[in-house]
C-alpha cells in the first residue's frame, strides 16, 4: 500500500491516553528526498506521532515502515541506529559543552577511550563543510545564538548518519533571518539526498519550504496535499475546521469602563523578547479573548499581570491603579483572580485537601480566621457551598486534591478564585484536558462572571472556544497583539492567518470597536 519510493510509511497508527485519542488511524507516506511538512494546532497529535516514529512511544495500533522494513522502535537508540534523526523543539544540548562535545557525545570517535579534541573538532568541521552547516566546533553552546544551536542539533543527526531528518517546530524559537538560514540548510540537505520531515504550525513557512503537506486535526489526518496545489487560507481552514457553537447563555448588556489596561508591555529572557510592545484593554462586563498558538507570550503575559513575573517595560493598570510589577498578593487584593494554565504545577497543591486548596491565599481573611487559629466552621461552610455551586464532584472536602478528576480539579480552582466576586479574572487555557461537560460548565461560569460585571481575560489555544465565548478577540503572535476583532467579525480563517504569522498587524493593529 505504501508508495514505491516511500522512505517512511505510516499506516493506521493509533495511540490512546486516558480520556483522549492522541493519534487516530493516521496514515500517510513520506517520499524519498522530499521535504514533507506535518501541520496542525496544539493538541492535534503531531508530537505524539513524532515520539512514536522515533521510538519514545509505542502505538496501540498500526504499523510503520522505514525503507520498506517494519520500524516500530522500542527506544530512541534504535531509531538513531536505523538512520532516523530528530532535531527536537527543546534542544537536547549541554549548555556548557562545546559544539564538538555535544556532537560526539555517545558516539565518540573510537580511540581506546580517549578523546583527541583536535581530531574530533576536525571531524566536526569537515561535516559542517560537507553539508554547508556553518559552525565553529570549539564554541560553547551557551555562547551560540538559537539558530546556531539548532545547527548543532542538525549536525548531531548528520554525524550519526541519518537519512531521514525530523525537525519538530524548528522555527518556533528563530528570528526571521535565522529561519532563512535554516531553510537554506534544508535545501542543501535535500540536494544531498536526505529526506526531511518538518513539523510546524506556521503556514507561510511550511508553504515556502515543503514539497508536500499532511494536515492533522484532533489526532486524525485531514489530508495530504502538494504545497504547490494549496493556498494559505485553504490550509488554515483544514487545520482549524469549523467552530462548534455551544449552547451558552449570555447577556447583551454593553460593557462598562476599562478594567484592565495593558500598555506597551515588554519582557525578555536573554536575547529573545517574549513580550514585545504588547497593548490591549479589557472592559468591565466583557470577555477579551487572546487567540494564539502557545509559545507566543501568553503564559508570560498572564504571569506579568498577576504579579508572578517582572516586566522590563510598559504598564499594567487594574481598575485605575498601576499594578506593574506588584507582588501577587497585592494584585489579588485589588480584585484579580487567576486560573493558571497548569492546574497541577501552579493551580493546586495536589497533596493537600480540597478545602485547604479552596481557601489557599484567602485563609487569613476575617471570615476564615480568628486570631491565630483557622475558623473551621466558616471555612467548611464556604467550601461546602462552593463545591455545590461549582459542581465539584467528590467524596469529601477532606479528600486530597490529587484524587479529583481533571474537570473537578479545575472546578475546585474556580471555587477558590471566584470567591469574593473578583473584578477581573485571567483564565489561561481553562478547559484544556477537560471533557465536554466540564468544558461547558467552565465556559458558562466565565460568562456568568462577565454578566455580573467582571472583566475576563481568556487566553486559549482553542480557537473554537475563543470564538464562542469572547466578546472581543486579540490575536497574539510573537509577543504582540497583531489584530483585534469583535465576536461578530471573527472567523477561523482570518484568525488563523494572524495566529500563524501569515498576516501580521501594523503598529498596534487595532481594528475592533
Amino acid at each position, binding site marked *: 500500500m505504501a508508495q514505491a519510493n516511500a522512505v517512511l510509511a505510516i499506516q493506521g497508527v493509533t495511540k490512546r491516553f486516558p480520556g483522549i485519542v492522541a493519534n487516530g488511524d493516521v496514515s500517510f507516506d513520506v517520499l524519498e528526498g522530499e521535504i514533507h511538512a506535518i501541520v496542525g494546532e496544539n493538541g492535534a497529535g503531531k*508530537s505524539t506521532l513524532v*515520539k512514536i516514529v522515533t521510538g*519514545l512511544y509505542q502505538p496501540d495500533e498500526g504499523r510503520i515502515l522505514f525503507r520498506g522494513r517494519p520500524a516500530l522502535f522500542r*527506544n*530512541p*537508540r534504535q531509531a*538513531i541506529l536505523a538512520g532516523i534523526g530528530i532535531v527536537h523543539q527543546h534542544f*537536547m*544540548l*549541554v*549548555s*556548557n*559543552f562545546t559544539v564538538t*562535545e555535544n556532537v*560526539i*557525545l*555517545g*558516539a*565518540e570517535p573510537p580511540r581506546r*577511550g*580517549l*578523546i*583527541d*579534541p583536535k581530531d574530533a573538532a576536525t571531524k566536526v568541521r569537515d561535516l559542517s563543510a560537507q553539508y554547508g552547516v556553518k559552525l565553529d566546533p570549539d564554541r560553547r553552546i551557551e555562547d551560540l545564538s538559537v539558530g546556531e544551536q539548532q545547527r548543532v542539533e542538525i549536525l*548531531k543527526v548528520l554525524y550519526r548518519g541519518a537519512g531521514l531528518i525530523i525537525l519538530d517546530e524548528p522555527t518556533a524559537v528563530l528570528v526571521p533571518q535565522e529561519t532563512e538560514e535554516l531553510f537554506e540548510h534544508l535545501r542543501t540537505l535535500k540536494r544531498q539526498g536526505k529526506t526531511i520531515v518538518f513539523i510546524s504550525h506556521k503556514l507561510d513557512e511550511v508553504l515556502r519550504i515543503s514539497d508536500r503537506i499532511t494536515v492533522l486535526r484532533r489526532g486524525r489526518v485531514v489530508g495530504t496535499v502538494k504545497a504547490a496545489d494549496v493556498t494559505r487560507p485553504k490550509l488554515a481552514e483544514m487545520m482549524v475546521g469549523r467552530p462548534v457553537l455551544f449552547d451558552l447563555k449570555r447577556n447583551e448588556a454593553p460593557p462598562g469602563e476599562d478594567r484592565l489596561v495593558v500598555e506597551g508591555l515588554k519582557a525578555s529572557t536573554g536575547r529573545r523578547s517574549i513580550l514585545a510592545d504588547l497593548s490591549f484593554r479589557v472592559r468591565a462586563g466583557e470577555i477579551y479573548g487572546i487567540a494564539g498558538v502557545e509559545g507566543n507570550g501568553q503564559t508570560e503575559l498572564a504571569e506579568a499581570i498577576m504579579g508572578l513575573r517582572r516586566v522590563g517595560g510598559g504598564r499594567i493598570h487594574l481598575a485605575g491603579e498601576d499594578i506593574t510589577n506588584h507582588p501577587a498578593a497585592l494584585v489579588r487584593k485589588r480584585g484579580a483572580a487567576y486560573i493558571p494554565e497548569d492546574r497541577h504545577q501552579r493551580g493546586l497543591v495536589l497533596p493537600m485537601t480540597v478545602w485547604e486548596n479552596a481557601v489557599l491565599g484567602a485563609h487569613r481573611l476575617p471570615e476564615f480566621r480568628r486570631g491565630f487559629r483557622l475558623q473551621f466552621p466558616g471555612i467548611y461552610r464556604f467550601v461546602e457551598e462552593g463545591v455545590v455551586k461549582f459542581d465539584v464532584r467528590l467524596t469529601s472536602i477532606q479528600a486530597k486534591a490529587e484524587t479529583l478528576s481533571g474537570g473537578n480539579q479545575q472546578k475546585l480552582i474556580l471555587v477558590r478564585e471566584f470567591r469574593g466576586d473578583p473584578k477581573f479574572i485571567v483564565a489561561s487555557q481553562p478547559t484544556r484536558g477537560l471533557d465536554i461537560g466540564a468544558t461547558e460548565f467552565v465556559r458558562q461560569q466565565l460568562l456568568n462572571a462577565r454578566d455580573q460585571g467582571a472583566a475576563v481575560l481568556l487566553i486559549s489555544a482553542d480557537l473554537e472556544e475563543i470564538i464562542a465565548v469572547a466578546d472581543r478577540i486579540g490575536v497574539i503572535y510573537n509577543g504582540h497583539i497583531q489584530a483585534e476583532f469583535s465576536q461578530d467579525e471573527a472567523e477561523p480563517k482570518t484568525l488563523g492567518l494572524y495566529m500563524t504569522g501569515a498576516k501580521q498587524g501594523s503598529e498596534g493593529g487595532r481594528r475592533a470597536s
Partner: protein
Amino acid sequence: MLSPELLASAIRMSVPIIITAVGAIYSERSGIVNIGLEGMMIVGAFAGAAGGVFLGPFGGILVGMLAGAFMALIHAYASIQFKVDQIVSGTAINILAYGVVRFSAVSIFRAATTTPHVDHLPAITVPLLAGIPWLKPVLTHVSPLVFVAFLLVPLTAWIMNRTVFGLRLRSVGEYPLAAETLGVNVYLMKYAGVIISGALAGLSGAYLSVEHTGMYVEGMTQGLGFIALAAMIFGNWKPGGAMLAGLLFGFAQALSFRAVSEAIPYQFIKMIPYLLTIVVLAGWSRRSRPPAAVGVPYERGEST
C-alpha cells in the same frame, strides 16, 4: 610567623581537603550530591588505621579506600535506585559511619575512640630541591600521599576533559535526558562518580590516620568532609580550583594549630576554618555554577 614550617604544615593540612574535594567533583559532576563525605572519611580513617595495624601502611591505605568506596556504594544505591533525597541519604551515611566505626573499634581493639599506633608509609625527601632552605621543611620527609594528592588534580582534569568517561560523566550531571537519548548509561555513570568520590574520601581519611597522626582518634576528621565540599564549590567544581581552595583552607587549619596568641583564645583560632568556609560560600555563591542537574534524582526514560 609566615615560616617555611607553617607552609609545610599548611600543605599537610590541605592534603585531606584536596583529595576529598577532588573526589567530590566526580560525584557532583555526575549529578549526585555527596554530603556523606565526612562519614566516608571517618570510615577511611579508621579502616586505614585498622588495616595498617594488621597489614602495614600500604594495606591500610588500600583498606581505607575500599571502606570509603563501600559506604559510597550504599549512598549510591539509595540515591540512584530509590531516588532518596540525597541530603538525607548522605546524612544517614554520616550517622552510620560514626556507629560502624565505634562498633568496630570496640570489637577489634576494645577501645571505642582510638586505635593502636600505626606505621606510616616510607617518607620521601625530594633530592636537590630539599636543599633549598625555605623549601626544606616542605619537601623533606614528606608522605608520598602528598604527591598523590597534587597529582590527582591534573589527573582529574585530564580524565574529565580528555576521556570518553569524563565527557559522559559530565554530560550526565548537566543534562541526563540528553545523554540518555544519545545512548549514555546514566545510572552507570552516576554509580561510578559516587564510588570514586567515596574511594578518594576513604583515601583522605586513611591519610589522616596513617600518615598524619599515626593512629585513628575519634573526631579527627573535624568536619573536613564538609569543608572539602565548600572547597569544591569555591573551586567551581574544577580540580584546579578545588586545589587552590583546599590550600586556602589548609592554610587556615595550619594557622589554627600553630598560632598561639595571648590576645586571642585558641578556641577562636580553631574557629577560623569554619568561619572562613561560611564567608567564602557567602561571597561566592552568586557566581558559582554547579552542574545543571546536580541533586535531581533521575528517572530513566522520564521524558516529556
